[in-house]
């Protein structure tokens, strides 16, 4: 038999072989060396599996039926198959199905009829169409059925043909035993019985299937008038275009950063959702859509951010319909799965929008399939369940994931490819897949509400655009009012804030009013007029600029002509008031330049008081006192000194006599700061802060960090041993006798004579140093 299939393949014409390779591309890669190997590959399990996964339920039914009918090696004719699947009148249709299958080498034929390709049984088996195995040997002679046998046979008749043997001693068991005895059942193992194929077929009256499944199902759905679907689609389309535009503007101002693993962070998603006034899944879709259309992208900088692209600029110039067509084109080609955003991957990481993780090659095919299902039933709204029913018929061996289906339908609705659940007019063009951007845009233009160029202004400071605002009107309203409600009409509200925004864009109050009046069929209501005028009056009443220094004088004549003097052009003088000039150069330079030009200027401090007439004095002042007189000056009185000594004493128990000064244990609170032997400033700082921290903890060794280092340096020089107190790994204090060997780079290398070991200590871990006598 197999040989004959090879033979059959070998006898194919070139055209037929081309057809075969087109139907099953996997057969051609890598190129088979001989026709024999092509035939072997066509009959292999993997290739057949792949071929079957694209077949619809009808074709699979025909193949199963053929397999069941021709199992004994006899070929079958299409009419036989049609009769077996319960559609005797559909012989021609079955013939077509078989022709297609033959082109894909799933069946082959000779003069007698059609046979299944070898290997098909393994893939569709073990019980094609729920029919049991072919009996070996002769069928039994017809006899009376044993009692209780009919229900058992009925239960197994339509498959699966495997039954569990009932417990011994029961009535059913006796019936089963009798059936086995009569040859109507076969014992496959100790616990199971099988219904042989011939018995099954005769129980089914020669049929292999109960009902034919040749035609795709047509789910009920809900009828949606075209106008309704188009209106909803138009609303959705305008909304998605607006949202993408909004996203671009916002990311232009504040580009969100790219996560290290790629993608947009949770907080940025939330912010985007807030910005777009929508939920996070929708926001994720908008972000993905904008990226798919190449309108935003990773800027490749370090650290990376998402920024609008050059394409975004051209996109923003286009009209609504063209912009939409661009987005839809990007969507149909996209392999992204935004609906997975927010779910977790195998490692438990949250999937982020724009992350490389959301890439699936099958998305395009599934999307096309979904749109195709919708297109097959125009004017009908199909939910995920209904679409799933059809898709399940189309490829029962490769059923798409529910989540992906729901996600794609949602995306179609968000884009306005569907409206109210049914394909919209432009959506049909998208589904057909043969529309250009221009035709798709034109189709959308057909269904968009008419552009309206007027806004009805009302006394409560609202305005109503009874339709879709024209681009010009839209720009005007975006700048000068807040949108309250969108849809078939747009409601806007004017407020001080919104009018300020318009004024910030460079309009004057008069211009804004004139523009509004020009677009309103009714006169501008008085409250709105007052609002605009009042806001304009206060707008920029207080102005802010930058200057580095200034010149002022009590007498305006003193400053007269300075700003215009060409010799002073380098000072960037700007008259702010008759008595004040601002300058863009530092005060000292300004002062010097003015002096050079014969103006007896004087410098003044931040409080407006003269800093002094001669520069020398200024310098002396700084040296003598701190630049900030507010800083408390150290009290150098005798009492204060005595207090310092007393405090030192208190903190150093056991050394309460004079003369222990230099030998007193010294501690280091922060050795890293300086080894220069304690300036008076530093000492005063320590005094102000109270006893150093190390001192309070340790008891002995209250001194300057510098002193501890000095002590170590001394010991190093003299080769002496010191008692060092260090902060150990667990934060506890450790006392060691150490002989310093090296002190550099913030580290002390020292010998521990007791343990005869060398150790290295970071200087900042040394709490105190005591000399050993």
């Amino acid at each position, binding site marked *: 038999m197999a040989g004959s299939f090879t033979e059959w393949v070998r006898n194919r014409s070139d055209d037929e072989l081309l057809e075969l390779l087109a139907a099953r591309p996997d057969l051609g890669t890598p190129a088979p060396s001989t026709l024999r190997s092509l035939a072997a590959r066509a009959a292999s399990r993997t290739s057949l599996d792949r071929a079957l996964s694209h077949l619809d339920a009808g074709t699979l039914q025909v193949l199963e039926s053929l397999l069941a009918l021709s199992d004994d090696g006899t070929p079958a004719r299409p009419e036989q198959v049609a009769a077996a699947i319960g559609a005797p009148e559909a012989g021609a249709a079955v013939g077509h199905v078989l022709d297609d299958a033959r082109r894909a080498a799933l069946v082959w034929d000779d003069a007698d009829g059609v046979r299944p390709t070898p290997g098909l049984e393994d893939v569709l088996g073990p019980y094609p169409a729920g029919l049991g195995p072919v009996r070996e040997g002769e069928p039994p002679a017809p006899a009376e059925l044993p009692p209780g046998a009919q229900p058992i046979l009925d239960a197994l008749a339509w498959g699966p043909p495997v039954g569990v043997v009932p417990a011994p001693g029961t009535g059913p068991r006796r019936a089963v035993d009798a059936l086995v005895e009569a040859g109507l059942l076969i014992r496959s193992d100790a616990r199971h019985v099988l219904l042989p194929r011939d018995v099954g077929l005769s129980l089914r009256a020669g049929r292999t299937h109960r009902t034919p499944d040749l035609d795709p199902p047509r789910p009920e759905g809900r009828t949606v008038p075209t106008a309704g679907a188009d209106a909803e689609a138009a609303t959705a389309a305008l909304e998605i275009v607006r949202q993408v535009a909004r996203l671009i503007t916002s990311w232009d101002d504040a580009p969100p950063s790219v996560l290290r693993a790629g993608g947009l962070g949770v907080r940025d998603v939330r912010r985007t959702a807030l910005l777009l006034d929508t939920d996070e899944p929708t926001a994720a879709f908008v972000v993905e859509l904008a990226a798919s259309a190449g309108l935003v992208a990773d800027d490749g900088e370090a650290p990376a951010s998402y920024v609008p692209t050059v394409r975004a600029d051209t996109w923003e110039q286009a009209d609504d319909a063209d912009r939409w067509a661009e987005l839809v084109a990007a969507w149909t080609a996209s392999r992204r799965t935004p609906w997975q955003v927010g779910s977790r991957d195998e490692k438990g990481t949250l999937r982020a929008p724009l992350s490389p993780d959301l890439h699936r090659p099958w998305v395009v095919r599934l999307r096309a399939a979904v749109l195709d299902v919708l297109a097959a039933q125009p004017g009908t709204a199909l939910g995920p369940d209904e679409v799933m029913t059809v898709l399940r018929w189309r490829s029962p061996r490769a059923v798409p994931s529910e989540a992906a289906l729901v996600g794609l339908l949602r995306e179609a609705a968000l884009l306005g490819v569907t409206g*109210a659940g049914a394909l919209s007019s432009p959506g049909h063009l998208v589904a057909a897949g043969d529309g250009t951007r221009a035709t798709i845009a034109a189709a959308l233009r057909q269904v968009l509400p008419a552009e309206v160029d007027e806004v009805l202004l009302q006394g409560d400071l609202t305005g109503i655009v009874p339709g879709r605002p024209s681009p010009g009107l839209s720009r005007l309203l975006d700048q000068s009012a807040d949108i309250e409600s969108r849809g078939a009409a747009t409601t806007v509200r004017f407020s001080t804030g919104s009018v300020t925004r318009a004024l910030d864009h460079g309009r004057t109050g008069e211009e804004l009013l004139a523009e509004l009046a020009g677009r309103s069929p*009714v006169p501008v209501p008085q409250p709105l007029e007052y609002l605009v005028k009042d806001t304009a009056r206060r707008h920029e009443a207080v102005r802010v600029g930058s200057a580095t220094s200034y010149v002022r004088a009590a007498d305006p004549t003193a400053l007269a002509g300075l700003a215009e003097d060409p010799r002073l052009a380098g000072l960037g003088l700007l008259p702010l008031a008759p008595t004040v000039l601002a300058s863009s150069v530092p005060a000292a330079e300004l002062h010097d330049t003015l002096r050079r030009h014969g103006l007896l200027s004087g410098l003044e401090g931040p409080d407006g008081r003269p800093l002094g007439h001669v520069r020398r004095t200024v310098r002396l002042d700084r040296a003598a006192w701190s630049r900030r007189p507010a800083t408390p000056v150290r009290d150098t009185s005798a009492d204060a000194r005595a207090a310092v000594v007393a405090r030192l004493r208190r903190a150093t128990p056991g050394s309460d006599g004079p003369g222990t000064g230099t030998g007193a244990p010294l501690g280091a609170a922060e050795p890293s700061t300086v080894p220069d032997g304690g300036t008076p400033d530093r000492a005063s700082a320590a005094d102000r802060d109270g006893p150093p921290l190390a001192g309070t903890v340790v008891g002995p060794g209250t001194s300057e960090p510098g002193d501890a280092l000095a002590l170590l340096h001394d010991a190093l020089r003299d080769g002496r041993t010191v008692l060092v107190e260090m902060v150990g790994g667990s934060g506890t204090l450790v006392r060691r006798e150490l002989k310093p060997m090296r002190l550099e780079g913030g580290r002390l290398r020292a010998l521990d004579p007791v343990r005869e070991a060398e150790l290295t200590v970071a200087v900042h871990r040394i709490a105190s140093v005591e000399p050993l006598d």
Partner: protein
Amino acid sequence: MPDGPLIVQSDKSILLEVDHPQSGDARRAIAPFAELERAPEHVHTYRLTNLGLWNARAAGHDAEQVVDTLMAYSRYPVPHALLVDVAETMGRYGRLTLASHPVHGLVLESTDAAVLAEVLKSKRSAGLVGERIDDTTVAVHPSQRGNLKQALVKLGWPAEDLAGYVDGEKHAITLSPTTKPVYPGEDAAAWEPRPYQAQAVDGFWHGGSGVVVLPCGAGKTIVGAGAMAKSGTTTLILVTNTVSARQWRDELIRRTSLTEDEIGEYSGSRKEIRPVTIATYQVLTTKRKGVYTHLELLDARDWGLVVYDEVHLLPAPIFRMTAELQARRRLGLTATLVREDGREDEVFSLIGPKRYDAPWKDIEAQGYIAPADCVEVRLTLPQHERMVYATAEPEDKYRLAACAPGKNRVVEQLVAQHPDDQVLVIGQYIDQLEELAAHLDAPLITGATTVRERQKLFGAFRSGEISRLVVSKVANFSIDLPEASVAIQVSGSFGSRQEEAQRLGRVMRPKQDGRTAHFYAVVARDTVDQDFAAHRQRFLAEQGYAYRIVDAEDLDVVQ
């Protein structure tokens, strides 16, 4: 209909183009289920809310009718999701009903066992229901009737209350065909309820319990009296304050068969319980040692009817008490269902659905309330006052702006422009009012004025003896000043919309000679005063009163 007057937005707002030839029909068609949100000159905005849709269901409208109406008058295709939502929301009302069972007493019944199961599973209904009788019925303890209804609204399954009411103690009340004089000098005159008042009473009576929404000045008291006459039982009337209580009493004596002896006042000063008792919210909510001391009033008699005046101000404790009064007929009267505390759903569940609603403008068009001319007078503060204002502490700013001395002169000018009108000057700050009263040589009524003195002054004002009156915010609620045709507001309490409605109501009463009412708000320019004013005026504009702005310097051209 491609050219209808409505535009239905997917955010559940409905825009109505006023100038459209069909706008009247459309307005009438959508009024039962959509709430009018604002009514400026060209396009009115309605909104669909769950409560609104349930109100419509309670009034016997079904989802199909609503959907048909929207589609019939809409200019553009109606968003599909919205229609589905309407049908779903309306379908929720009435799935559950409270009924009186011959054996089990008060029961909650459902046509849908699943809904009942869902409701019973919820924590909100725990402890409110008794034993399960069968799949679709559960017993309810009579005392929890109100709480259960409240819980069900929160759960989104409002119950229809068909359990009926106790009859109450009979007490014959009829409307008199001619008014009985209450004040000396008043003449008896023939009268009858206006058509909309009669409709409101019928609507209420037919529905059992519920709320009647009528604008200020449209005669809500008469609706109350009508309901009492229909009921013919003892009645408890709850009002906002004592002055309002006396007003009710006068009005009842004037227009019904009730005599002074049959009407009791239950307030801070008097505790009378009579067949018709008028109590103030305040006395009911008085607590002593954590206990409401006057609760027994609710059970003092077998009331056949409870009337709530100004439902939108009903304090929360009264809601709780009302929850236990569910077996008595309840009538709520208000000018607006909007509550600043957002407890609209409690009004719906505890007092009842809206039974009658008449838009302000319609009643005005019928000539029952006076048309009004609203003017905002903007006063530019002199330089030195602006300086003081600019440097003032934020918490003092409003007071400073509101009490700008320049306002006195403006008020004087305004008063001078209305020599023949009854003028009411309303303000917030007593100092300012005292100054104004001295300036205008007019009597002043504040919270400190005794009730007797107030009534004397109101009486004098009513009779025209005095034509100028300066009042503080005590005048906001429920006092009838029939002939005040000019109101001048010099300061308010931080831009409350409710206050604005009340104040406008002061001048909205019909005038005998059909004169236009004037409402002036004097506002200091470029201050918070102006910001608050803007908020309040938005309300006026939304109610359909176009207002003008006039600079104080140009006051001469006002008239």
